[in-house]
């Protein structure tokens, strides 16, 4: 069907300052109008959104899809389906696939497979260096032409700061945003939990907050020198967020995101060696968590991401330090963000902005807003729906989450991608 009316929902489109009970009309896969239908418009389908929120589909800045190379953990088809079920219509995937996204062929293949599976849009990040080895620059211009929305060395170290400077300069030549995971590897020193009270008690090798803040402080100087647009991924420390916010205030083109789990959990959740909380960067102190919430509210951090990393069951069947880090987060991104609204951190429109327009701007993609003519990527969610996270109801191939068994509030009811329903209530 090409003409759809979504009626009676609370329409929230933060980019256009809209928050009202209003209808939304779609035609030919695009947004046609908000409010009154144009004269002569007759929808082929009407979705009753009474009691629901209607907003742009969510844009997730970091989700590993595991394809190509690790299809036993997840596939583009399985993970984009999980995204659709979570109301997410655009996913940014990091370049650490096997092979790495350092050639146009891999970048195109991922987008083609995503288009074929049809559940969500996937925009890849290209590798900043060949093979992510941190030594030789990748062919960034070619990666840009092949649809990459930015470049990143993911969590792999650069061999030295000179290579980093050159990479930033080269990326800046093509106005590419560089996505940075700030961590000094020598200070992280192979740790698997935040260096603090809990790691001390459990005897787990710690990653100090300074592993992140030293990296941020140093990189901000390079970013200022080069004048490149940079995005800091998965900021986990209060001090790190503060450094970035201050740098932006001083005029640097820097942005930052935080994972949904870092806004809810702390180092204490690792107690008793809960390997579902084995995450990189590690869960920090409660003060860090509270401060990250504040920076999010004050726009020091612009976006919330899922940091989705599906794993097969065996990846977690080992003592804590030997387990793979990461969780499956696509299906909990919305309820965990809504929880921030319930807890008074953000208003509902501000929360939605951090899942839609803001991340879309960081990626430089046309998404995350409902202007007429935009692709009709839409999430319709029930903000009051109560449900419990259980492994057997997850769509992602990965079933690890520290939120397993949590009572969740809020669930995507319909997800539309280019005007096509890709998720709807099971009958």
């Amino acid at each position, binding site marked *: 069907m090409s003409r759809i009316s979504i009626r009676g929902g609370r329409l929230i489109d933060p980019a256009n300052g809209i928050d009202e009970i209003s209808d939304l009309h779609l035609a030919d896969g695009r947004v046609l109008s908000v409010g009154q239908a144009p004269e002569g418009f007759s929808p082929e389908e009407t979705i009753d959104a009474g009691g629901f929120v209607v907003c742009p589909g969510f844009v997730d800045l970091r989700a590993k899809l595991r394809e190509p190379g690790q299809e036993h953990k997840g596939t583009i088809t399985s993970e984009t389906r999980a995204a659709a079920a979570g109301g997410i219509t655009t996913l940014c995937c990091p370049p650490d696939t096997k092979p790495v996204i350092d050639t146009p062929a891999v970048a195109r293949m991922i987008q083609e497979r995503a288009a074929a599976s049809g559940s969500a849009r996937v925009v890849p990040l290209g590798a900043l260096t060949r093979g992510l080895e941190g030594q030789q620059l990748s062919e960034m211009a070619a990666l840009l032409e092949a649809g990459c929305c930015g470049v990143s060395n993911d969590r792999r170290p650069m061999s030295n700061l000179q290579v980093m400077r050159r990479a930033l300069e080269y990326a800046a030549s093509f106005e590419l945003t560089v996505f940075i995971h700030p961590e000094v590897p020598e200070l992280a020193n192979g740790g698997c939990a935040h260096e603090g009270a809990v790691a001390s008690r459990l005897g787990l090798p710690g990653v100090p907050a300074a592993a992140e803040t030293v990296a941020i402080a140093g990189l901000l100087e390079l970013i200022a020198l080069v004048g490149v647009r940079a995005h800091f991924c998965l900021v986990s420390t209060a001090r790190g967020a503060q450094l970035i916010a201050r740098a932006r205030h001083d005029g640097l083109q820097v942005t930052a995101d935080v994972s949904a789990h870092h806004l809810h959990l702390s180092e204490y959740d690792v107690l008793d060696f809960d390997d*579902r909380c084995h995450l990189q960067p590690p869960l920090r102190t409660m003060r860090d968590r509270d401060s990250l919430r504040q920076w999010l509210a004050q726009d020091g951090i612009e976006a919330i991401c899922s940091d989705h990393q599906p794993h097969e069951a065996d990846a977690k069947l080992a003592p*804590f*330090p030997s387990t793979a880090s990461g969780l499956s987060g696509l299906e909990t991104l919305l309820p965990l963000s809504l929880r921030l609204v319930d807890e008074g951190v953000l208003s509902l429109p501000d929360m939605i902005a951090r899942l839609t327009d803001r991340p879309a701007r960081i990626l430089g993609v046309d998404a995350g807003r409902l202007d007429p003519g935009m692709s009709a990527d839409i999430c319709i969610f029930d903000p009051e729906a109560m449900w419990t996270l259980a492994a057997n109801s997850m769509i992602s191939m990965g079933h690890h989450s520290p939120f397993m068994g949590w009572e969740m509030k809020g669930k995507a009811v319909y997800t539309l991608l280019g005007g096509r329903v890709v998720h709807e209530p099971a009958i």
Partner: protein
Amino acid sequence: MDRANIQVDSAGSLRHFLTIEGLKRALLVELLDTAESFAEVTEREVKKVPLLRGKTIVNLFFESSTRTRTTFELAAKRLSADVININVPASAATKGESLLDTLHNLEAMHCDMFVIRHPDSGAAHFIARHAAPHVSIINAGDGRHAHPTQAMLDMFTIRRHKKTFQQLIVAIVGDVLHSRVARSQIHALSTLGVQEIRAIAPRTLLPVEAASALGVHVYHDMHEGLRDVDVVIMLRLQYERMQGGMLPSEHEYYRLYGLTEDKLRHARDDVMVMHPGPINRGVEIDSAVADGPRSVILQQVSHGTAVRMAVMSRAMQRSTVTGSVRESS
């Protein structure tokens, strides 16, 4: 994940022995009392009791150890259990079957208790979580996390000499950061209610944050730290600490933190000198002190068997009950 203390059952009896943290004082005292009765057994002509006859205990060691494994083996044999020793070098473990597969294979051979040493912190917890309900897990050292039977034999040794814990000032000297023994000792000492626990080390071996998390008073100077202490526990210094840039040299470490007669003068006259072993003579402790009248280092070793008998018999008594319940249901 179940956040309940998996070490004890609903009746409060010992089920696994993974860490001292979270165990009640009464339970620790009970273990010490039980160990006291086994200490008499080990001094008898016939050193065996039939408590665990027909039970099979596996010493599953992923890290090399001589003393700990031997005392566990001796303890099991004196309780009349059958003992199997399995040493898995770390390299073989990585290319071979997973830790869990090893466990399940041994369970299938109807083993009742596993004594586990592993280089990963949390390994004993992991195995306890996945073990069959009738199987007990004893932690014989996991990474930097815990070595609870060592701590209990140290408590046993202290109690034999000092009678009560209440008034004691105890100093732990050396590499607290990387020491599973120190962590377990600190939990045991604070649960048993000593007056003060001190840690003496340079900051590289004891970051400020770690010290406050563990609840110890930090000293960087031996003379100050040893003032008026009743018990001094020396930790073994690993050579890797020099390679890792945490210390400049053995020479400077010994000069500042090595236990000598001269430094020991600051402690109380009746101070006890302890060391979990194996000792590095001339690195963390002078031979004159290690072999001197205030040293109880060898007593610690001989108490190891009685304490491990106590832990094993306690944990197994509980698991016998569950085992029979399971069979009859």
